[in-house]
């Protein structure tokens, strides 16, 4: 009524959002993220920035640090490679074939995600320690010690990374079933050609993703590794443990430097897979 008549004309308008709660939800999310993630990570960057060039060189040329980083990343790489061989086999068998125990094995794949890392850690340690049943057997038969060596670390990381490969590949293989493969078979390709031209190229992108995820996760893993590692400096001491040791020595600069290196490597690997996936999407889209 008259209320509208006396309202002044409005100048250039701010866009109105039809659904309410934008400011509240975004504001709360940003505050929460800032306190939980952003602020602490900025603190890490600032702490690492306090080191000058010489300081960085001192930390990074320390052979104990080099050994720890090499162990963490090297074992993560080895474990990711092993999982990239056995993961696809498991995924393929679980998707394709019907056999006794299939459902149980399929459920088991999720166990490493769900089991607390410390629980997995002590279980693996008591199995593969030189005095443990598996450790003793392997030592006697092959003459190789698993527990308290880099081999033990790799073993623990295989356990941790396994679900990444299997669970990433399963949906891809399931989609492949039927359509693409049938099409290829109908066109007269024989089995090995179907494998080379259809199965492998479709699975490869997912495999690269899974490989990177399990590598990044493995490099930072702590709980399932420390019990089986034995933690001998320069031999079986992982990088996350060295961060804790530096912290206990109140050597913040040293701890931050190692943390920064680890963080950058995992972030880079994630950026690489994101770029890779974008590239694959684009290629598939244009075909």
């Amino acid at each position, binding site marked *: 009524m008259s209320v*509208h008549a006396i309202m002044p004309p*409005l100048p*250039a*308008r701010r*866009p*109105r959002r*039809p659904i*309410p709660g934008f400011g509240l939800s975004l504001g709360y999310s940003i505050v929460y993220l800032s306190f939980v993630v952003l602020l602490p990570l900025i603190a890490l960057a600032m702490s690492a920035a306090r080191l000058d060039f010489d300081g960085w060189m001192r930390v990074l040329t320390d052979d104990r640090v080099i050994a720890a980083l090499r162990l963490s990343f090297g074992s993560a790489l080895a474990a990711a490679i092993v999982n990239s061989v056995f993961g696809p086999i498991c995924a393929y068998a679980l998707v394709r074939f019907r056999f006794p125990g299939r459902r149980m094995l399929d459920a088991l794949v999720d166990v490493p995600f769900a089991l607390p890392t410390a629980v997995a850690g002590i279980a693996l340690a008591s199995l593969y320690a030189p005095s443990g049943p598996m450790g003793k057997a392997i030592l006697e038969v092959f003459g190789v010690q698993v527990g308290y060596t880099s081999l033990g670390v790799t073993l623990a990381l295989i356990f941790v990374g396994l679900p990444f490969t299997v669970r990433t590949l399963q949906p891809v293989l399931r989609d492949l079933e039927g359509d693409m493969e049938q099409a290829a078979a109908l066109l007269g390709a024989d089995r090995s050609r179907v494998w080379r031209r259809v199965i492998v190229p479709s699975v490869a992108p997912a495999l690269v993703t899974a490989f990177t995820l399990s590598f990044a996760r493995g490099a930072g893993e702590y709980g399932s590794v420390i019990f089986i590692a034995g933690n001998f400096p320069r031999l079986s001491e992982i990088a996350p443990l060295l961060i804790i040791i530096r912290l206990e020595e109140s050597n913040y600069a040293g701890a931050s430097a190692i943390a920064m290196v680890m963080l950058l490597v995992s972030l880079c690997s994630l950026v690489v897979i994101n770029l890779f996936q974008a590239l694959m999407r684009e290629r598939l889209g244009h075909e």
Partner: protein
Amino acid sequence: MKLELENVTRRFGPRSVVDHVSLEIASGQLVGILGPSGSGKTTLLRLIAGLESAYEGRVLFDGLDVSELPLRSRGVGLVFQQYALFRHMRVFENIAFGLRARSGKERLSGIEIRRRVSELIHLVQLEGLEDRFPRQLSGGQKQRVALARALAVEPRLLLLDEPFGALDAMVRRDLRRWLRSLHERTGRTTIFVTHDQEEALELADRVIVMNAGRVEQDADPDRIYDDPASSFVFEFIGEASRLPVQIRDGLVWFRDRLLTSPRVEAPDGPAVLHLRPEHVRWTEGEGSIDVSVIAGRRIGPHRRLGLEIPGGWGRLEMDTDAATPMRIGDQFRVEITGGRVYAPSKSRPLQ
């Protein structure tokens, strides 16, 4: 309710999706906004609803500016293409939602809500389905629940986005007639968006054809079909063929033949003649054009022939009696009995 749009503009980045649109829709009209995808028709509907806000211009309901009025106070009934039924609520609760949302002295008693919902269920002929969940309904039933839900709050304006887009042809036709009769009974101002010209022409009192964010033509269905305002509308509505012609002294020349029937709005020079199948007729007489048959398909009672003018001069379509024997490769002559040449500003060039 009377709806007015004054110079309404919506930009996404540098692109104007709705570009200075002005409209006036009288109370009780049933209006179809018609256009191809990307023409801005859905954005225009969302601007009227208050789901988008205009960058420039005003939206007025009964003369009052509602640009600053939030969605919940506008009193518009919305029906989306995918219906957007509340998936965890039964049909009854879906329809009652708006009634339950009222507060203060507008609050209704449970009995009153039950009565109103039953009326609506009767209106949309869904008796017996009150306790179904949306996932247990067919497309047409979902559509009617969505309509009943929107009508429950007695909206000043009913807005439908591609109301029949997700339905199959039979249901679509029935629902179209039913919606028409529903509108005649309720008399509520209704605007719907569609990309289907047949749907717009059959259902609406008035059709607004949009292209590239602008209104190309705003008229009743007869005018839209018989007197398209631009080459875009001509081609978007119904069948159209195009021939390259020359305009000399306001007359249309196709090669060395003078065509007297088409309406001409273009200045002298090369131009494009737009024709519908009914503008082409079999003849033996003067000023006629040689053609040969290259295709034929059955359209209702007619047979529509694809014709080619020998020498690569262009293609035409015409309708003949389905009983007429006709084979591909047959040659005969046709004359032009209508068509239109648009001014270059309202015309799309021949590629």
